[in-house]
């Protein structure tokens, strides 16, 4: 402790012998850390936004199907409505919302074009709680109930079919008997999502669709949401226990690409942090080596006065601890200020077309995860001190008589 009291003020004053160099190092460390924190919060916000937007559109956080439906989603692989056991599990507080859907491959035809689509028979009252499609209507109305035999189609599909609100389209779906059922639907609403989604999904009332294909009250899937994504695995397990014959999966297993994107977001933060750490390390080594070489004579003097090699090592290391520590504190403050300054979100609506490819929301809300706010600064601080041990070790090894010969 006595040594610390001796060396700490000396180390602090030594930092400011060359203020320009100290300020440059502080800049490198603080901006490096700030960029890591800002990048982490931006990517986290982006990943969160993309994930929420995709899950909210139709996927939800999990889905229940009959065994084999996902491999071959046809009318032979539908399931019954949930029984009492499954219903109890779905209505438990761990599940925030759920909706039953009938989804089948179909062909939609206008006067001009015939295109393949997926028709989704929905219960609007439940769908409104779990899907963002009803919020994305740009023309007309959403479905009024399960018996509603109107069609809600995507904006791009409407363009490709050269149809419009109030006109009729014909949907053709393979029925229970294996024959192609066809029926005309009024276009009652047009929604605006991403182009691929718009081209794929057509929505109609569930009962109307069941009647058309003759499947009674059978459904193709139950989509469900949980209040916290962390609790998802537990909920999936309890649903599997309630319905062991059904295929119950969470979104990561349903959309492998989305799962991979979600995982790669973290990886990209760590790649960026690695790049920053290398740059910071080079800067710190360079600075501390210069600081040591400039003071070789002085280290010789201090050794001649009785300072031990370990004291010299401690002195130079302490300078690094203080220098990098100060840089890290400034970087943390800059990171926090950035997040606070952008607390109302980053409005990316001007780039909405570009964002469509990433399925991101238009407003990103930055947030630094508490663990990131501890791990990234600590990692940079420890690495900086670690790399500065080399110059410190060199300083400690200097023979006093050789050092005293060194020109001041």
């Amino acid at each position, binding site marked *: 402790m*006595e040594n610390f009291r*001796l060396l700490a003020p*000396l180390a602090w*004053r*030594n930092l*400011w*012998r060359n203020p320009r160099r100290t300020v440059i190092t502080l800049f490198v460390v603080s901006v490096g850390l700030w960029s890591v924190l800002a990048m982490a919060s931006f990517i986290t916000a982006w990943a969160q936004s993309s994930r929420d937007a995709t899950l909210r559109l139709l996927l939800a956080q999990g889905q229940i199907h009959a065994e084999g439906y996902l491999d071959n989603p046809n009318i032979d692989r539908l399931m019954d409505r949930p029984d009492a056991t499954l219903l109890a599990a779905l209505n438990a507080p761990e599940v925030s919302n759920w909706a039953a859907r009938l989804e089948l491959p179909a062909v939609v035809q206008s006067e001009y074009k015939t295109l393949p689509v997926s028709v989704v028979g929905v219960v609007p009252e439940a769908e409104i709680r779990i899907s963002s499609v009803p919020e994305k209507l740009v023309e007309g109305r959403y479905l009024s109930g399960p018996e509603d035999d109107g069609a809600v189609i995507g904006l791009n599909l409407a363009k490709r079919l050269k149809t419009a609100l109030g006109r009729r389209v014909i949907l053709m779906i393979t029925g229970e008997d294996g024959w192609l059922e066809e029926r005309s639907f009024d276009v009652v609403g047009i929604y605006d999502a991403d182009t691929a989604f718009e081209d794929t999904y057509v929505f109609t009332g569930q009962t109307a669709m069941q009647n058309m294909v003759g499947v009674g009250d059978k459904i193709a899937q139950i989509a469900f949401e949980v209040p916290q994504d962390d609790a998802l695995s537990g909920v999936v397990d309890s649903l599997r226990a309630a319905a062991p014959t059904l295929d119950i999966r969470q979104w990561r297993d349903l959309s492998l690409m989305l799962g991979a994107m979600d995982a790669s977001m973290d990886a990209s933060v760590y790649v960026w942090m690695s790049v920053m750490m290398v740059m910071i390390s080079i800067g710190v080594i360079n600075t501390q080596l210069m600081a040591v070489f400039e003071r070789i*004579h*002085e280290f010789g*003097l*201090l*050794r*001649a*006065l*009785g*300072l*031990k*090699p*370990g*004291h010299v090592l401690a002195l130079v290391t302490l300078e690094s601890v203080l220098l990098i520590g100060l840089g890290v504190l400034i970087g943390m403050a800059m990171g926090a200020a950035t997040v606070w300054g952008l607390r109302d979100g980053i409005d990316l609506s001007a780039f909405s077309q570009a964002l469509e490819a990433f399925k991101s929301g238009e407003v990103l809300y930055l947030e630094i995860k508490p663990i990131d706010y501890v791990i990234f600064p600590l990692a940079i601080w420890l690495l900086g001190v670690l790399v500065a041990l080399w110059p410190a070790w060199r300083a400690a090894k200097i*023979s*006093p*008589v050789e050092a*005293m010969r060194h020109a*001041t």
Partner: protein
Amino acid sequence: MQHKGNEMTAIVSCKGITKVFGKGELAVHALRGIDLDIMEGDFATLAGPSGSGKTTLLNMIGALDHPTEGEVTVDGQSLSGLSKSALSDLRLQKVGFIFQAYNLVPVLSARENVEFVLRLAKVSVAERRSRADAALAEVGLQGMETRRPSALSGGQQQRVAIARALVGRPRIVLADEPTANLDSKTTGELVDLMYRLNQDSGITFLMGTHDPRVMAHSKRHIEMEDGQIISDTRS
């Protein structure tokens, strides 16, 4: 250890000191079998031309370097085989240094520079403050305790260096060309100061110097040439 002809104690004893820098044909024999005792209370000068081995010998005595052959004893303790840490302790407790080029720590004030060795020796705050201020007063720097070296003249800086060398109450003060960078007036003042400290407090001084004004005060004059002592006279 006794000096021939009187009862003074030898503070430093060098036996057969040889120092060779480099190897083979490039070897330079800086010291060639030096035998020397520095007695308690000596005010001795070590003179000789450049390259005669004065600084090398001072480095050996100050435990800053080790001889190729021979043994140095400081205050009865042989330096042979001591670790770097033990040598640091010995320098701290028994040797005071005054160097040619002031050699103060630029980020410390005059008082802090003087206190530094006391802090290393773990002297209490109150005692080191009073001892540092007393040492600075002794060298005529009362009122300048808080000045940094950059705010002191060359002579004042060397006075601080003298105060620092003395404050730890060393057994011997080694000074290597202490007046080399000073004007004649300041040199005279500093030599008078060191001489007074020697006379009043009995502090032992060994000074490597070319300066005739320093040698004029010397009570013992050691002359070196080519790494050997060619004369050792007392006045």
